[in-house]
């Protein structure tokens, strides 16, 4: 989609954050437009998660401007479901109790393919199922900004592929601005409109992905992009 004319969904200006002597973010600027999918890649400790937490409102910068939509949701690395609530109640966590929200939960679970599990305890779910519930929980609020913190890192390769396809479809339908933090360069190319490479708290590299959707791994453009990103990350193949 052409998002360059859409309204702004995120504006970061001069955002700095340090923990003691460690500078996690050394002054970053980021604009995201509605419907845009941005992937943030970088090594461990490069500041990816700090940036995501600031966008989520879980952390605040030492200096800098943060402007985000009111309605934003996060899918964390682990599912973070409330073990004492049945699956569907986890999906509507924090929403008012109403028949509408109950129906919305049912629908969101249907979308992630878990209708048959809506009345079980989270402890009985598999890792992939739990993460899909976390995704349903994030989507049921119809966020303007969807934040994904390595949401597939703990999943097996097959489930990860399914989840990536699912996320791609969902975002096509719901059109939130989406930021995904990932280690996986292929995942970034599969999903994102724009890939930003973070190195030691600074944006070191930025590419726009022009491959038409739906995308699949492989092909000349894909491989070239993958190689250049890996080189930027300092990984030799």
């Amino acid at each position, binding site marked *: 989609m052409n998002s*360059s*004319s*859409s*309204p*702004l*969904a*995120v*504006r970061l200006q001069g955002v700095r954050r340090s923990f003691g002597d460690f500078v996690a973010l050394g002054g970053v600027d980021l*604009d995201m437009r509605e419907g845009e999918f941005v992937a943030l890649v970088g090594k461990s400790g490069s500041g990816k998660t700090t940036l995501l937490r600031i966008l*989520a*409102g*879980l*952390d*605040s910068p030492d200096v800098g*401007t*943060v*402007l*985000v*939509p*009111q*309605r934003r949701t996060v899918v964390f690395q682990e599912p973070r479901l409330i073990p004492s609530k049945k699956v569907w109640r986890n999906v509507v966590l924090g*929403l*008012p109790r109403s028949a509408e929200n109950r129906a919305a939960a049912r629908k969101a679970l249907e979308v992630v393919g878990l209708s048959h599990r809506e009345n079980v305890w989270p402890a009985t779910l598999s890792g992939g199922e739990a993460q899909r519930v976390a995704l349903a929980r994030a989507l049921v*609020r119809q966020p*303007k900004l969807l934040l994904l913190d390595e949401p597939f890192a703990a999943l097996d390769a097959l489930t990860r592929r399914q989840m990536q396809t699912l996320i791609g479809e969902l975002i096509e339908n719901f059109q939130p601005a989406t930021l995904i933090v990932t280690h996986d360069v292929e995942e970034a190319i599969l999903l994102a409109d724009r890939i930003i490479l973070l190195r030691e708290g600074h944006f070191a590299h930025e590419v726009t992905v022009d491959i038409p959707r739906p995308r699949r791994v492989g092909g000349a453009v894909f491989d070239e992009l993958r190689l250049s990103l890996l080189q930027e990350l300092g990984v030799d193949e």
Partner: protein
Amino acid sequence: MTASTTVVESSRPGDEAAVTGLITPRVRRQHQRPLVLTISIRGLSVLGVFVAWWLIARHVANPSKLPTPLEVYHNYGYLFSHEDLWGNLGDSLQRSLKGLIIGGSIGFALGALSGLTALGEESVDIPMQLLRFTPFLALIPLFITWFGLGEKPKIILLSIACATPIYLNTANAMRHVDRKTLEASRSFGLSGLRLIREVTLPLSLPGILTGLRFSMAISVLGLVAAEQINANSGIGAMLFNASGNFDTPTVFCCVVVYMLIGVCFDLIVALISALALRWRAGVAAR
């Protein structure tokens, strides 16, 4: 759910109008609370109790029924010189520690048995629950006929009372140690006593310490009952006798002594926690 402004005019990049509808999130940050503030608030809360006490004693209550804090303070001088408060305190502490150690050990051992194995739970849980609801105050005359008037019935009474809170909390904490953590530890070859010592015990320690705190309190409060047996020494006997004689200042003195013992016991638990539960710092909600 708070609805955000959805009608935003499409505009060129950098245009200020494009930013409408966006907000700066308000962040819930964890602050390191200044130590001075923490201590002052805690101190003021204690002072508040004393001020309330003093106000009620001066302006509301009948002076013969509720002494002021100052009267209670002066009464200590009398109790130290004429009633051997130190000696009585020593006797009492010895009894409660004996009860705590004997009862606590039994409670802990049975709790571990019940928490760790199904067979253990099946064997000891119902008897322990029955014991928990035994009205041992009413059994004091029986205790005297069984065990005489000496130290024995007092220690046994306190031991029984101290066993159940530790039992209950130990069993519960050990039963609910995270299954996945145990599974991982087993897969690395930990088993038996070593698994218990290195994983189960540390992870259930918070619960066990809660049980210990309950048992500590009961070991002191139980003195009031235990020292009714041939009430000739101990802080519980002093309280029991003073209460019977409507000697209100002495009753208050004893209550305050109980509280101070409680504070000391809590400090001991806090010390154990500080040493053994350092791993919890990044886990707790605050």
